């Protein structure tokens, strides 16, 4: 009897230590799922909210030009303390929240991780430069971390079903498209290996830009855009900014672009489309993708059409 009880205890002990979260820095072994998480990228915040375990703190500040919670996620972020911006999160604010785990970006927080590790164990994923597949794998790992693996799997299954539905809208003969984020000072191409590029490839729309020098995202000028000459151009902008493409559009070269001639220059919110990168963002993007007619290769119209500046 006693030996049986002991065996049970040992077994349950093993079971308790069975949470294994594998990430870019190694594997984190846990006995119980964690409840207090600090998320340093929007995709982690999105994922945790989708899983029903919102983080205690997140890098949602607007210091140093960071842009805060993307609009699609704004009213779902309740009771999450800001720990500053993603680039320079406040270590003090993180420490005060007493997190059990900090989720960081492998690339963005590379130099900060040793300091973060002195506060709590760090789990690092490639969010900023990750592909759609990378981000989906992270959903599973984060699900495991907070003890919601089943929900994570369900989220991904639902997402697969949605992807299939969306894919049915895709015009298989549509030419490759170019995706780019435009800020007041830069035009950054998101290649086929970026989050948004690989998501569109999954939906059957080829991306014109491939990674260059191992960069999934890189800047080009108007000349570079003309050289690429996409048949469909998708620009991601912010409504509170005057993106560089508005001044480019005044150059006669702009109207020479195949996409401009074919009326296929689309404009979407850059915060919603390129910053969220989680299951909730994907749901939002899929809805706009279908609604805008981008998948079907229809000419851009209404709110989704590029706003040409008045001279």
């Amino acid at each position, binding site marked *: 009897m006693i030996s049986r009880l002991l065996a049970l205890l040992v077994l349950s002990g093993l079971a308790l230590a069975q949470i294994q979260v594998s990430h870019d820095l190694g594997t984190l072994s846990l006995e119980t799922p964690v409840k207090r998480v600090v998320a340093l990228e929007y995709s982690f915040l999105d994922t945790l909210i989708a899983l029903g375990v919102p983080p205690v703190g997140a890098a949602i500040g607007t210091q140093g030009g960071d842009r805060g919670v993307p609009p699609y996620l704004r009213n779902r972020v309740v009771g999450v303390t800001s720990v500053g911006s993603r680039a320079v999160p406040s270590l003090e604010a993180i420490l005060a929240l007493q997190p059990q785990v900090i989720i960081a970006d492998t690339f963005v927080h590379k130099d900060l991780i040793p300091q973060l590790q002195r506060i709590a164990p760090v789990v690092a994923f490639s969010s900023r430069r990750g592909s759609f597949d990378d981000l989906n794998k992270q959903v599973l790992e984060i699900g495991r971390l907070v003890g919601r693996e089943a929900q994570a799997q369900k989220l991904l299954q639902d997402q697969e079903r949605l992807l299939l539905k969306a894919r049915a809208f895709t015009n298989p003969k549509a030419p490759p498209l170019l995706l780019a984020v435009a800020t007041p000072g830069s035009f950054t191409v998101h290649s086929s290996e970026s989050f948004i590029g690989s998501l569109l490839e999954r939906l059957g729309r080829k991306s014109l830009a491939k990674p260059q020098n191992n960069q999934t995202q890189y800047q080009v*000028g108007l000349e570079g855009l003309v*050289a690429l000459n996409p048949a469909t151009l998708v620009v991601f902008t912010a409504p509170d900014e005057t993106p560089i493409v508005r001044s480019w559009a005044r150059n*006669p*070269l702009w109207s020479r672009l195949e996409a401009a001639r074919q009326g296929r220059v689309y404009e979407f919110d850059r915060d919603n489309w390129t910053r969220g990168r989680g299951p909730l963002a994907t749901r939002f993007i899929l809805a706009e993708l279908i609604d805008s007619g981008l998948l079907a290769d229809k000419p851009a119209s209404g709110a989704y059409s590029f706003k040409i500046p008045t001279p």
Partner: protein
Amino acid sequence: MIYSRRLAPTLLVYLLALGLLVFSFLLAISLGAANIPLDEVWRLLFHPEGSNNALIVHTLRLPRAIVAALVGACLGVAGAMMQGITRNPLSEPGIMGVNAGAVLAILVALVFFPGLPPWSTVVVAALGGVGAAALVYSITLSVGLTPVRLALAGIAVGSMLGAAASFLLIIFEDRTRGVLFSLSGSVAGRTWEHVWTLLPWAVPALLLALILSHQINLLSLGEDVARGLGTRVEVVRLVSTTLAVLLAGAAVSVAGPIGFLGLMVPHAARGLVGPDYRQVIPLSAILGASLMLLSDLAARLIDKPLETPVGILIAGIGAPFLVYVARRMAVRD
């Protein structure tokens, strides 16, 4: 000054320098995201036929090349004048804190006086430059004016003003978002609009510098000699300093701070044509323009398609040159 030897006959030097300028200018227009052969560039410059390449040449590369050439000429001449007036071979707008002062003034204007008209930027930049130069002088005066002390004070004031500029950029992020340049100096994406901002200041100032070159010759002989020869030293110094700072301010207002170009170019010019400022000033303009065009070209090509700020590239060559000049001076002393 340091250089007295002449390496080649002046006429030949000028021909070669002009050849270099034309070549760099055409090369800057030829190379980019799509390379346009030099003979086609030549044809398109004079007979734009409405093709994509013609539009690329006329709306993108030509204005950028003109801006680069003007900025280079302004900084080269500003450096030559400052070195002549102060008889200090380490003088130049970057090292003397003038560029940093100009940047800070532009940012202060942008943040606190957003209503100022765009044409006033050059004046604002020049005022900032004057302020910084005055500060550097007054700091050095109290401990005795030597070239190295002046350069040290200039670099210190420059860093301080640079820090203040960074502060404004971060704190007033919303208002400084529209600022044209980064703190590392670049001519990427400059258009005809910027050519027209620069041209009305740069061209008259460059011509005036040529006219003043004889007076700078006299100043460079030393104050007493100049006075003995009937020069109104204070007036000449005031006018030429203002002009040098205006040239630097004009360059900064479209390209941001580009250091060391104004240091290297006059030294090269003096090495080629000797210490006569009537030769050094025009040659500094030509060499400055060429160096700026070639550096901008390299900055575009190093990490294609990414644009490296040209200011960083020039600092990479210029900083060792500063050490070289300072060491030569030490040996001579």
